[in-house]
């Protein structure tokens, strides 16, 4: 588990519009990497390109390379379905499957890959994943209750449990706390700290405090103006970005002068 990712000269287009220009960075395994920046700067676009979810948007196209360890996930014969089995994603809005129980939600990814599995093994996976998502103690007595009966924060942790049940190499999180209240946010942030022991975590956030609390490295994205492509302005250790950034734009953004 936990592989390294490397982005090489990544350009992303929506139709003719160039949304992201020339992004290169290395995402270290077993660490948390945060993407910050103002709205429309391309940080979510870059995140979605990392597990090939981006191409579900019609017209979206990626140039350049995204390496998962040594393998380019955009190489011609790579199946995006296989890529997504190795790189999990947690979305902005909690999205457990409403027709499934808590248990079935956790097993949703397992069910896709291996049809037949003894019940004991499934129970083990459910318990391990829910413990991994800090949700086990809250739901262990009602695993067969519907997943959308939980609170928003619990639902988001259920989604994280669902994502880690298939033991991905990398876990991508697209503003996972923006729909949550402060208490739930704290619970998810605590969880992110624990997740990096086993996974490579990449998180997009609007919340700079959150980036400084949870991440080891931070990338700051920005655009020059509407209609211009987003660029990676600065990528460095989180501590350095928030105390002594090299770029003036970064400093202006983190001190709240724009964005």
């Amino acid at each position, binding site marked *: 588990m936990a592989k390294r990712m490397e982005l090489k000269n990544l350009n992303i287009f929506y139709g003719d519009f160039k949304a992201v220009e020339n992004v290169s960075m290395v995402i270290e395994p077993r660490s948390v990497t945060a993407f910050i920046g103002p709205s429309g700067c391309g940080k979510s676009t870059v995140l979605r390109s990392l597990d090939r979810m981006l191409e579900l948007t019609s017209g979206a196209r990626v140039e350049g390379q995204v390496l998962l360890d040594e393998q380019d996930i955009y190489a011609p014969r790579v199946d995006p379905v296989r890529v*997504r089995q190795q790189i*999990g994603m947690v*979305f902005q809005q909690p999205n457990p499957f*409403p027709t499934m129980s808590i248990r079935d939600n956790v097993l949703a990814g397992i069910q896709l890959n291996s049809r037949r599995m003894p019940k004991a093994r499934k129970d083990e996976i459910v318990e391990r994943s829910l413990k991994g998502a800090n949700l086990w103690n809250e739901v262990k007595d009602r695993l067969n209750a519907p997943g959308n009966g939980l609170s928003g924060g619990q639902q988001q942790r259920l*989604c994280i449990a669902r994502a880690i049940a298939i033991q991905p190499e990398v876990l991508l999180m697209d503003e996972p706390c923006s729909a949550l209240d402060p208490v739930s946010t704290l619970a998810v942030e605590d969880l992110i700290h624990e997740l990096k022991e086993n996974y490579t975590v990449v998180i997009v956030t609007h919340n700079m405090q959150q980036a400084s609390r949870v991440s080891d490295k931070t990338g700051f994205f920005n655009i020059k103006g509407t209609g211009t492509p987003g660029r990676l302005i600065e990528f460095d250790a989180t501590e350095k970005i928030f105390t002594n950034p090299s770029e003036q734009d970064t400093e202006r953004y983190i001190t709240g002068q724009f964005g």
Partner: protein
Amino acid sequence: MSDDIRSIETVDESLMADHGNVGDAAFRGISTGSGGIIMVILAAVAVFLIAQAAPAITTGDPRYGNLWGYVAPYLFGTIWISFLALLIAVPVSVGIALYISHYAPKKLATPVAFVVDLLAAVPSIVFGLWGITTLAPMLVPAHQWLTEYLGFIPLFSGTASGTGRTMLTASLVLAIMVLPIITSLTREVFLRTPKLQEEASLALGATKWEMIRQVVLPFGRSGIVAASMLGLGRALGETMAVAMVLSGGRMISPRLLTSENPNTIAANIALGFAEADSGGVHRLIATGLVLFAITIVVNMAGRLITGGPRKESR
């Protein structure tokens, strides 16, 4: 006692009730009236059916016995042909709907959806003509093949009809007629599948078909049932196409390929009404009452089935 406090002089004119409310009152009257008319019409139809059917219910015709003995074969025919039509139409409709909502490129989805909707605009008499002149003769060889090689299955047993005007042909025509309504309703439901749910499934490494099974079909299940019920309602009451295509009689037989088929209630009324004596008319109306009752039960069942899960998801 408080009348003097509320006397008209103390009310500010701009707050008075009749301030430019004529249009409002008129519109409320029209809406309420329209709503009321529906109830009156439904009640009138029910009263007509019961009053006209009453003589046939109380007295039996010596040729047919009591009413139940008379209506039973037609009732069987009606339900059997509708069931067959749904058996064919529902899977095909769901397939077309999924193609339009999830597989077809945008340029194709709209025209295909339009063509399916257009199918609903074809009058049933045209379907009847097509069935009797084109489809039935075309299917004769298939009838022969099925009876010859699969005749050991009771449904396909017996002598193949030489005209093709059988249960199989008629239910096929009926299936094509209910297909548009089921397709367009299920398509709408599939299109309303939350994008977020679909992405959740794909992000777990589901293929498109796995995503559809995991998310789209469970989400659309109550919609599929509701659409099928509406299709069933249409199939039960369909008259002209069946009357023209099916060479039916008064019998109970599940065989699909022979020239001896049970007729449906609606087709029997259409075919028999012109030549019926006054006793016969009452009897036909009584069968109409039975059909009316079944259709109401089907609609209510549809509502019960779809009502439950829908409330939950809201």
